Structures are given as C-alpha cells and as structure tokens.
C-alpha cells in the first residue's frame, strides 16, 4: 500500500500566490520518479503535500488509500520518509541520535522522550548507517560532517523509518557534483533493492535523464510533461523551463509565500 494519489489539488498560500493549479498525479509503488522544473514551479509544494507538511486548498492527497490528514497523519508519516535540501539534521546531536529520530513514530513515545531507545531500534539505526557507509562517523556531532555526509545521514534517518516511500526535496542542490552522484546512486539503489517508492525533486536535467524511470515536468503550478527520459526531447524541455516574460515569473511569489 504505497501508491501516491493526488487528485485535483490546488494550493493557494495566504499571500495569494497559487503554487499548484489543479494537479493530478498517481505514483505507482516501487517506482523512481523525478520531478523536474524551474524554481517556483511548485515542485517542493507538491512533494510536501505527500507527507502532510503542506495541506491542499482543494482536492485530495491519498497514500495507500488513506487521506493524508488528521489522526492518520503520524502513522502515514512513519511510512513516508523525507530527505531535505538543507539536510535538516539536529546539529548538536550525534549522527546515531539523528538516525534514531527515524524510529520515533514506531514505538510508544514514553521512552524516546528520555532519549531511551530499544536495542532493536539501535540495530536498525546501525543497519541504516552501514547502508550509507557512515558507520565510522556514528558518534560524531551531526554538524561536524561534510555536506555529502550530512545528506547521507538524512538518508539513513529515512531508511531507519523502514519506509514504503522516500521523498527527496532537492537532495543534491547544496552538494558538489561527486556527492550529488553518490546520493542519487544511493537513492536509486534503495529503490531497486528494497522496492521503496522514491520521488525526487531536481533541477539538474542530466541527473533526471540518467536516474529516473519517469519524469514529471512542472511549470507554474501545472504538470507540463509526464513520461520516460527517452520521451524528454528538447521541445519537451523547453515547455518545462519556459518563462513567458516577467508576468509569469513565479520565483519571487514563491519565495514570499514561504516567508
């Protein structure tokens, strides 16, 4: 039960900016999807709808048949992990503790409030860390790692959730090309080996071509392309990245919406 279904979703922010305009998306379990598009296209908003960090103004978001809302939110989030552009780790805590936060929704909260975890959770965390090849940095403070390493911790945290779905919001935008390559390979490997559905936001076209099964192109809150990398011709790229003069430039509105 890890298919994502987004139906007729519109998202309007309090300042009036309409980030998404009537979006329909269905993502199959186990697939590797990349969302491509210019800044302000609505990629981030779309992704954040999938784990409830944003709520739609109209329309509905379902994961595995359940609405992403209300009482199920916590349960759904435990199965949907997210990897962020700015890593979003807790700086002064150790790598291990950061990875362990992935287990927070899975047990009763009584122990975790005191930073107590069960041995099985530690085991899962260690497994995740070895999967991203960071076992030797386990006890370092999270902010003492390089960008690429911190993102791997972010992925380890996601893995620790034993998720059905991993969402990655511009995971490589803050990284150098070599680290970007590592991270995308890691994500692809996780999808292939563990059968986890992966949805990634990117703006690097080359990476999209090389790693995606399916590319969804967005522009100004609408989906303008949906197909395989092979189908993404130059014309298609133009549609995705076009800007029709200043009136259609959304990046300023987008920045203000999150202000």
């Amino acid at each position, binding site marked *: 039960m890890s298919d994502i279904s987004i139906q007729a979703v519109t998202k309007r922010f309090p300042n009036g900016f309409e980030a998404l305009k009537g979006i329909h998306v269905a993502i199959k379990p186990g697939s590797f999807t990349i969302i491509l598009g210019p800044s302000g296209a609505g990629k981030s908003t779309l992704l954040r709808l999938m784990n409830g960090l944003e709520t739609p103004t109209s329309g509905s978001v379902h994961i595995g048949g359940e609405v992403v809302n209300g009482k199920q939110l916590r349960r759904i989030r435990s199965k949907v992990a997210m990897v962020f552009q700015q*890593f*979003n*780790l*807790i700086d002064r805590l150790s790598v291990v503790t950061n990875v362990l*936060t992935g287990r927070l929704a899975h047990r009763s909260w009584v122990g975790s409030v005191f930073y107590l975890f069960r041995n099985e959770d530690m085991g899962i965390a260690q497994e995740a860390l070895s999967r991203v090849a960071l076992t030797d940095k386990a006890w370092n403070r999270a902010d003492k790692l390089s960008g690429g390493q911190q993102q791997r911790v972010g992925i380890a945290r996601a893995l620790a959730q034993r998720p059905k779905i991993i969402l990655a919001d511009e995971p490589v935008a803050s990284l150098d090309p070599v680290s970007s390559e590592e991270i995308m390979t890691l994500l692809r490997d996780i999808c292939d080996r563990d059968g986890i559905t992966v949805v990634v936001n990117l703006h690097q076209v080359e990476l999209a071509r090389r790693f995606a099964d399916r590319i969804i192109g967005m522009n100004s809150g609408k989906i303008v392309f949906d197909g395989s990398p092979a189908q993404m011709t130059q014309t298609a790229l133009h549609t995705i990245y076009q800007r029709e003069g200043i009136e259609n430039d959304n990046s300023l509105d987008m920045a203000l919406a999150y202000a």
Partner: protein
Amino acid sequence: MTLLKSKLVASLSKTLPPRPRSPVPVWLALTLALLWMIVYDLELSFETLAYGLADMGEYFSRYGKPDFTDLSRYVHLMGITLATALWGTVFALVVAFFLAPLAARNFAPNVVIYRIARELLNFMRAMPDLLLALIFVTALGLGPLPGALALGVHTAGFLGKFFAESLERVDKGVCDGVASTGANFAQMVMYAGWPSILREALGNVLYILDRNVRMASVLGLVGAGGIGLALHDTLRLFEYGQSAALILVILATILLIDYASAWLRKRLD
C-alpha cells in the same frame, strides 16, 4: 539643448535641498516637559535633595564601622537566602520547562493552548514577587518556603517567556525534519526544540538564578525568611554598624554569585 543647460546650471548651484525635519528635537522637548511635570507632581524639591545629599556624607559615615559581632548569624541567614533562591529557580525551571513549548507558536499543538500558555506566563511575570510572597505567607505561614514559591512562580514567567522566544527562533527546517518522521508533540519538543536552544536556555537559567539571589535577600522584609528581615530591623533601630555588616555580607554574596555564573557561562561556551 536649453533643457540640458538649465539642468547643469541647477546642479552647479551651491544651495542644498531643504533639510528634512528631524523629529528628535520635538521628542526631546516633550520628554523634558514630561520630566518637569513629574518632578512637580511628585513634589520633589531640590531643597530636600540638596539637604539630603549634604546630610548623606555624614549619614554614610555612620556605616563606616561595620559591626561583625553577629557574623555567624548573618552568614547563616545568607545561606538560607541562597537556598531559597536555588529552590525558587529550580521550581521556575520545572514550570517553564513544561509551559514554554506550549507558549511557542511553532510547537504549540493549537492556537488556543498557545494563547492560554502565553497569558499564563505573562500573568506570572506581572505579579510582583513581593505580592506573591505576601500571599504565600498568608497561606503557609512565615518562613523561607513562601519566599521560594513566590520567586518560583514569578521567575517561571520570565524563564518561560525566554524559552518560548528561543524555541520560536528554531530553524523551521530542523522542525520539518523531525516532524516528517511522524514525531508527536513531546518528541518534537525534546528533539527539535531543547537541543537547538540549549546554550541560550542555560544562560537564561543562570541569569534568573542571579536575579533570584538578589530578590531573596529582600523577601525577608515580608517575613519570607532570609537576611532581608534582619536588615530591616537593624535599620529601624538605627544600628548602623550592624546594618553595614549585613549590607556587606549581602554584597559579598551577590558578587560571588555573579563571578560564579560568569565563570560557568564561559565554561559552557
């Protein structure tokens, strides 16, 4: 061409555009007027002040010979005062620990709880500790306990506000990161909240401890134990030697606490 020439002529003119009106002189005049009115209303006469200042030289000389015969009793009283301050601070810390996340807009479960928590903290801050001490003395009788409680409640308001403001400044990304794993309120607070503000929070606690030592010294005046009452008595009986000794004991202790907390702060950095 004539247009350009006239523009050039204008730019060569030696006069500056008129200076924008500054509001400062108006505010200054208003403030001075206000102060003058206050002096008049309070019936403060410079005569009494002048006489007072002249007398004060002579007056302060009476404190010149501190009388330390009762020193052990003073130190004991100061010890009670310090203990009162410590308990008050710990109590404030416990209350603030639970209230502050509820009073932080980004952590509070909903707006209603947020507003109530904020108002509660404001209320605790607004009530002077002396008034609280009086109330607690009525309920619990004389002694240091009502003093500790009064300090605790009052400074819980301050500490809670400081903590809440620090929590509201936590990076939204970090909060998103923990929230995306499905954490509940308590887990958000413990993982995204407190670790992010630990340094500021400890600084705030030290500041409050410092403040409570000062306040504890005077709470004795309302029967809430400690050294304040002794000072009040000696002054009323015009025992200047003993008053001087008491003041010096209080002064020494406060300076000691100041140094200790500054040292602790440096160590934590």
